[in-house]
């Protein structure tokens, strides 16, 4: 049996009079890395915010770890990284982790473990505002990992990172998935798609494909995900 961390049914989200998500049916399985790909502005962030429970839904349903999204008892179990690093610039890396760790009620040892996971041990006593953009987003990621979440939602976590670090982070995502967590990552960089177990392609608030990277290439007769995406978009416009 596949254990799904997230299941949506006919999920519809309306913001400021615009339909941002159109009747989405999708699942994010536990124990694997699921990628959410699509051009910017297609609704990726809104979908992630809905799963995390900070975005109200118009109709349909979102179930997260067997509970409706936004339930109070889910707050311990989800790690969420927004596009902008949501951390305090005027505190050091360690002070940030200590504060969020106190809110989550985790043991002090977790701070060291999470710093190691994002490779920030050396910078731990530096003020976040003086770090590079990539380092700041890793602080934000470390905060998301503090509570040993069952579901990790990452909104474009690798933007602005160098290739070595990106590779390293994808390694971390796979470790988390291997340990049983569901990892849900968005990106508009198509070459990152290859590293996901499963891909959801999104366009204008709808899911236009849900497959493995291999499956997508085979189905469209292409050699890379970018061409596969374009081929599917073209196919849709013909219909």
């Amino acid at each position: 049996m596949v254990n799904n961390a997230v299941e949506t049914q006919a999920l519809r989200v309306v913001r400021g009079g615009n339909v941002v998500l159109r009747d989405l049916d999708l699942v994010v399985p536990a124990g694997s890395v699921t990628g959410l790909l699509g051009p910017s502005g297609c609704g990726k962030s809104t979908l992630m915010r809905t799963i995390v429970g900070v975005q109200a839904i118009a109709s349909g349903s979102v179930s997260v770890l067997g509970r409706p999204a936004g339930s109070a008892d889910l707050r311990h179990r989800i790690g969420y990284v927004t596009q902008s690093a949501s951390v305090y610039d005027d505190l050091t890396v360690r002070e940030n982790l200590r504060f969020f760790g106190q809110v989550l009620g985790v043991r002090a040892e977790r701070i060291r473990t999470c710093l190691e996971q994002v490779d920030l041990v050396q910078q731990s006593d530096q003020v976040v505002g003086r770090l590079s953009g990539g380092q700041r987003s890793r602080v934000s990621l470390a905060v998301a990992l503090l509570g040993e979440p069952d579901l990790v939602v990452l909104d474009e976590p690798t933007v602005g990172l160098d290739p070595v670090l990106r590779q390293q982070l994808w390694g971390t995502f796979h470790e988390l998935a291997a340990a049983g967590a569901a990892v849900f990552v968005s990106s508009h960089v198509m070459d990152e798609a290859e590293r996901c177990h499963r891909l959801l392609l999104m366009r204008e608030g709808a899911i236009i494909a849900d497959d493995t990277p291999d499956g997508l290439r085979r189905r469209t007769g292409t050699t890379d995900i970018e061409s596969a995406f374009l081929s599917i978009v073209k196919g849709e416009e013909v219909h």
Partner: protein
Amino acid sequence: MTPRILLAVAGRVLNQIRRDHRTLAMLLVLPCALMTLLWWMFDDLTFRALGPALLALFPFIIMFLVTSVTTLRERTSGTLERLLAMPMGKLDFLGGYALAFGLVAAVQSALAVGLSVLVLGLDVQGPVWMLTLVAIADAVLGTALGLFVSAFARTEFQAVQFMPAVVIPQILLCGLFVARDAMPAVLGFISDLLPLSYAVDAMQGVAQDIDLAEITRDLGIVVAFAAAGLALGAVTLRRQSA
């Protein structure tokens, strides 16, 4: 409400202030400098009349500004959204801010009151510690109102402009310029509805050592306004956006 989380928020806010040396210096030195300026400007009699009211104004104004800007920063930087997606109660968040700024106000007022009484010769008939207590209540009031109005500002530029809208009318009507019972009836009535009026009454009450019951009543009203402000602030913190 979880005390562990409330204390974590308060500790974090104090840590942020501690790292910001310029803000810390202004918080502690500015009220003292302004009291000294006042003492220098006026003769002893006028200074004694105005001094207590000003000791009520500083913590209120400063905490209003500091809180509205810092909370707005939490709202726009995404840290508030992150905290509300964690097991953080709204009252933990607001209470943590109120506690941290209340402590800062305690130190700030202790310095300003100490300087005024010991060095500048401000005449206080009632217990001096009560001046500090009223000042702390004022600071929490400023914090509560600042938290509330920050919900209606999208930028720090807008937040700062709530000061002339919310704070200055209260300063004009609190009895500092014209005694409250000498105002036109309508303005006197409005003055009765504004929290700062009671804060100033309480300060002047302590200075002149009028009936302790009356001072306690005024102080109670200030605390009630602060609690109402925090409750309204809690309503403006939303876990979900529409």
